[in-house]
């Protein structure tokens, strides 16, 4: 891992909001962050798959992250963003309510996900980061995107 080469115990995270809660993914998995664009609905897919977008000539699937995590829905706002992540050679967009910041957090301050028994299924989480009085929920993108368990036709 790249971050280990200079500060072995630190992780850089992209922090974003879903409702009131703060979530994060490793910056190494993030390709870019985009404003919301036209999303083309794809029929016969699970409801958390919002559709596909055109990212400079490539067609990418976009996941409605809140629906995937079973969080209450909200309308799109000016702050709504699509975070393009790459997991196992697969690029996917995720809709989030707002992207707040990029921060560095010490590995020591990351707890295992079973500490929080929240509304989100534990398998989707990879840890909880504590920073001052904030809680950052680290997402397990492999599970969320469901690589390997390809979409079954509904």
């Amino acid at each position, binding site marked *: 891992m790249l971050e280990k080469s200079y500060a072995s115990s630190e992780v850089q995270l992209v922090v974003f909001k879903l409702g009131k809660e703060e979530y994060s993914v490793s910056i190494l998995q993030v390709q870019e962050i985009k404003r919301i664009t036209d999303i*083309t609905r*794809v*029929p016969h897919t699970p409801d958390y798959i919002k559709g596909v977008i*055109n990212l400079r000539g490539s*067609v990418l*699937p976009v996941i409605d992250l809140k629906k995937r995590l079973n969080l209450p829905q909200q309308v799109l706002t000016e702050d709504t963003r699509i975070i393009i992540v790459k997991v196992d050679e697969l690029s996917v967009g995720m809709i989030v309510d707002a992207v707040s910041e990029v921060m560095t957090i010490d590995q020591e301050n990351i707890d295992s996900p079973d500490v929080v028994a929240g509304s989100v299924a534990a398998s989707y989480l990879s840890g909880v980061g504590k920073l001052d009085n904030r809680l950052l929920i680290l997402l397990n993108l492999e599970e969320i995107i469901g*690589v390997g368990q390809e*979409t079954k036709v509904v």
Partner: protein
Amino acid sequence: MMDTNQYMGMFLEESREHLQTLNSCVLDLENDPENLSVLSEIFRSAHTIKGMSATMGFTTIAELTHEMENILDLLRKGQLKASHDIIDTIFRCVDTLEQLVESVASNNESSIDSKPLIIKLKALAKGEAVLSTPVKAEAVSIAPGASSSIELSDTEIAVIKKARDQGMQAYEVQVSLREGCLLKSARSYMVMNALDEIGEVIKSIPAVEELEKENFSLSFQVIVISGSEAEKIQHTVLSISEIDQAVVLPCILPNDATGEIIAPKSIEPMKKDDEAEKNGNVLVHTQTTVEKKNKSGQSVRVDIDKLDTLLNLVGELVINKTRLEQIGLTHKLTDLVETIEQMDRVTTDLQAVVMKVRMVPVGQVFNRFPRMVRDLSRDLNKEINLIIQGEETELDRTVIDEIGDPLVHLLRNSIDHGIEHPNEREEKGKNPIGEIRLIARHEGNNVIIMVEDDGKGINADIIKRKAVEKGLISQGEADAMDANEAVRLVFLPGFSTAAVVTDVSGRGVGMDAVKNKIESLGGMVDVETKVNEGSKFKIRLPLTLAIIQALLVKVSEEIYAIPLGSIDSTINIMPSDIKTVQNKEVILLRGQIIPIVRLADVLNIPDSDNQHTEEELFVVIVHIGEQRAGIIVDNLIGQQEIVIKSLGKLLAGIKIIAGATILGNGQVALILDIGSLIQ
């Protein structure tokens, strides 16, 4: 030491090509042992492999080809007859060479032992050559007064006679090289080459390999059959530099001089082979002619990745052109629109060229099948006639690369389980020689590949029973099925097991794998069968996977693309024109009943309410093979060129969507898979 690495790719590619030529030519030779042009073709290929491998330092390959060449040379000179044993040995050589070349490719130390083969080849060369010597001597003794100084074997005489019947002449060409000539072998090679172009060299003294080794003083003789005049031949030879003299004499046959007619003598050194031939005789015909293979223009080998990149770039260009078009139209910029029209012409041509470059004849895949059919049918003691048609049909390279395995599967099935044993066929009153047809042809924007056999066919009842036993379908479902539907059950995953294979005329070995592969290529596979008459597997493949013409349609607020290749027409109907038959909506079009598909329903399009309007409906009539359907849409947008993009791994499971494309405004539109939509 010479750095051979950079030539490696070329060596491998060319070796494989020549091995392929060897395979098919040896097959031809088996059917027509007297065919000298096939023999020379084989010789040339073997020779090239020998030369290349020696240069690259692959001595094992070089050695083996060298021994093989010796045999071939004896065959060519008519001192050996292409017996079964010899053909088999040559085939084994080709196989071993293939293994050797592949081991070079995979960088493995070759553990393949070619020694036994070399010994066998040597034995063949010796044993048979001894047998044929007396015959040769006889041929000479008959012609004491002939002016030709070259001894001719019976085969050669026969070839010359045949050539004369076709209005050609045999000439003896005596070539002398200039004194001090440095590259004697190269010059002699050029002479041979030049003569090969205007005729056919049937013999040389000394033999070709002696010429190559420069085992001759300054002159050599060649017998050539040609339709050209003696002067032309002389001129051709003299046009090569460092040739001192070329004397062209008409070749006089022994009986020309004596007026006697020699009864054709055939050398029959091995009687037992004839019996061997009776078991498992294979006739393999392809409609290729040797001349066609010789035709080669100038060409460049290009890495397929580069072509892919090129194609992608052209795709981007097309998308951007479409965008510009849109801008020109929205802002009513006449100048821009005119310029774009010209650009459009160029991009269309560019695209056509790029697509054409990627097209390769399907024969590239087909040409390995005759050999496979031969071997398999021999193993199984069946007699099978493989007929290949339409091998010049072109398909995109990516499709070609993938289609081989499914076809092998289908052919193996036909050979193994379709075609019956000869005696069984005779009992049924069929020709004891089974027939398998492998046919490729164009059909609209598709290529059809068919594997047809005249074997025992598939019994729908047995298939149904097996499917029920395996719990794939219920008894009720089975009863409701007609024969065609039942036969299609073989494509179900889990249908195929070894037990089923022997019971039910055996179809089903990995048929689901075949189906998956073909569908992943955007194609379809279907089967028709009649018990005791045979089966027909029909594969439909898209011509290209990259850029197509499509009709854009609108349903509610969503835009979809329908490939133009599957569209018959578009019509307007009134809602009252829709009738129901067995609870299915249909319309009557020119006397034909056509089922209706409401796109809004099939695609679960939200808030579409076209069901209840009393206005005219737009119907796109589509077809896949013989099947037709009418697709109801809200609006037709227009015809457009679209670049097909994959939806990616995550969304790969959606059957009715074939892919996506990017429209002029940057939006993504989905491409409908008509095949899955109307089934």
